[in-house]
């Protein structure tokens, strides 16, 4: 994902001299390559995310288009008030890009996990929230963020995510996309955990369960119509997210079901009001927290077995 981000950003930096990559000691070798070619468009703020976010708002107020890139948790939690007051409240054209959402920082523990960011940030007015599922979709999200005049937050993985799109990506802000068709239940999923859901869907075919898998790549504004349409066709609605089940994707769907007076049974799969535990590879930490492909398949099967 990081390579895709830098690739997409490079294209923007090349095209528009107002695009500024704002790092807080958070760059990679690829960022250094951009800095070599466009030195004035890459700024390292040092290890100071609050200043990085607020200064980005200052840059934006003078016509720059800053892309603030740092460890996801530091944007979502440490800099929250700066995101709120300087970026969202002042509606500045700042792009916040969180590197390593969910449990991606799998060996560093909960300080680096980002499993409450959707809950924390989706309440902020003016903020668009993008949650791309694959490298190609991330590239499309970065390009789309540039086109939006206002604050955008992109949460991205960093664990060699699989590409789920064979051809070109049909990415539209505010539109969910059906990735797999099925009849037993509709599964809404956000972020790169979609690969596990697609694998689970294959496994469940043997049990006679076929899943409609919907990729939610925009958390805000939420594609309400896709929930409304699914509730007309499916009794079982399931959400899967690498995030707390409080305030995340599942909660957004629950809001729509309740406020639109829809009839459906919602099962939320994610972290159940707990900080994630364990160390290891990303897959191993997902497994330690009940979010492996096998766990997801089992939970979906269970949900489909009950009315």
């Amino acid at each position, binding site marked *: 994902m990081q390579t895709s981000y830098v690739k997409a950003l490079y294209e923007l930096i090349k095209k528009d001299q107002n695009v500024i990559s704002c790092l807080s000691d958070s760059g990679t070798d690829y960022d250094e390559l951009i800095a070599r070619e466009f030195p004035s468009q890459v700024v390292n703020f040092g290890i*100071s995310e*609050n*200043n990085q976010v*607020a200064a980005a708002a*200052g*840059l934006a*107020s003078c016509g720059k288009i800053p892309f603030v890139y740092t460890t996801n948790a530091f944007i979502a939690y440490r800099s929250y*008030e700066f995101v709120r007051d*300087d970026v969202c*409240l002042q509606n500045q054209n700042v792009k916040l890009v969180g590197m390593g959402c969910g449990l991606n920082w799998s060996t560093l523990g909960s300080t680096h996990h980002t499993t409450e960011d959707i809950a924390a940030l989706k309440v902020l007015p003016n903020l668009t929230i993008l949650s791309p599922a694959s490298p190609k979709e991330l590239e499309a999200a970065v390009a789309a963020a540039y086109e939006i005049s206002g604050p955008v937050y992109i949460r991205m993985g960093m664990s060699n995510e699989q590409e789920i799109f064979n051809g070109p990506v049909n990415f539209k802000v505010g539109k969910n996309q059906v990735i797999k068709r099925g009849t037993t239940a509709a599964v809404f999923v956000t972020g790169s955990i979609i690969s596990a859901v697609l694998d689970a869907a294959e496994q469940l075919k043997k049990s006679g369960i076929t899943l409609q898998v919907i990729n939610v790549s925009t958390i805000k504004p939420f594609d309400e119509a896709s929930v409304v349409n699914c509730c007309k066709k499916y009794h079982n609605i399931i959400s899967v997210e690498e995030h707390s089940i409080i305030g995340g994707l599942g909660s957004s769907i629950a809001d729509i079901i309740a406020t639109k007076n829809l009839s459906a049974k919602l099962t939320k799969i994610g972290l159940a009001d707990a900080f994630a535990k364990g160390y290891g590879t990303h897959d191993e930490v997902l497994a330690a927290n009940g979010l492996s492909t096998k766990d997801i398949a089992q939970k979906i099967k269970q949900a489909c077995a009950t009315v």
Partner: protein
Amino acid sequence: MTKQDLDKTLKEIRKEIFLTGYSVNIAHLASAFSLVEILYSLYHNQHLHYDPKNPDKDTRDRFILSKGHGSLALYVMLAREGIISQEQLASFCKPGSSLGGEPVLNSVPGIEATSGSLGHGLSLGAGMALAKKLDHRSEKVYVLLGDGECQEGAIWEAVMFAAAKQLDNLIAIIDDNALQKMGKTSDIMGITSWAEQFKAFNWDVQEVDGHDVAALDQIFAKPNTTKKPRAIIAHTIKGKGVSIVEGDARWHWRLPSKRELKTFVQELNISEEEIASCRPAM
């Protein structure tokens, strides 16, 4: 302008600050009083370059009141300079007004940033100053900080950043009135010299009597040849202009009682009619 005329004007500004706040029973009076000469020098004596008829013009210098609770001093100055109307000023904190207790971006012309939560303004200003540098522009960015505000950690992130990036177009003015809500800043956080702090972070530091307009004029006009961002430590008196308020931390967020009002009336030359027209909900 004679010294007598200047003193009269400064007293009028403090009177306008007081009456505007008193009319709605809300004000950080003491915090606003300590800024009067600084803002007068910047705005009226034209160290801050802008076009009053077109205050949003791209070529303007920018001013951020990071200690947003001093807003009344800024609003009064913007009204005196014709950037906002007297009607707008009179609407302060009333239903339907654009002017609240803390400045809000785009609420009226002349407000460059939303402030209120302390510790944001210097980073915002550093971002603006960096943008100007990247565009090879000569405009300056002024950020007014409270000395108490300098206890916020984010200020020092911005201080390091601005020095590292040689933002010599950034000027931080520290309203060093040595007081915060609960007492002396030196007692509460132990810092006795902001000048030394900023020097240690490689800023160009100037110190000035923050109530001496001529001295402020001189400092603001002084060229910066250092390639360092500049910190102007303005030594001020919190509550300056009303004897019972001066230097007393208890006045951070309060208005006078009926008895105390007499001192305000006397020392700021307020008429009975002016007080009566305020109709405070006491």
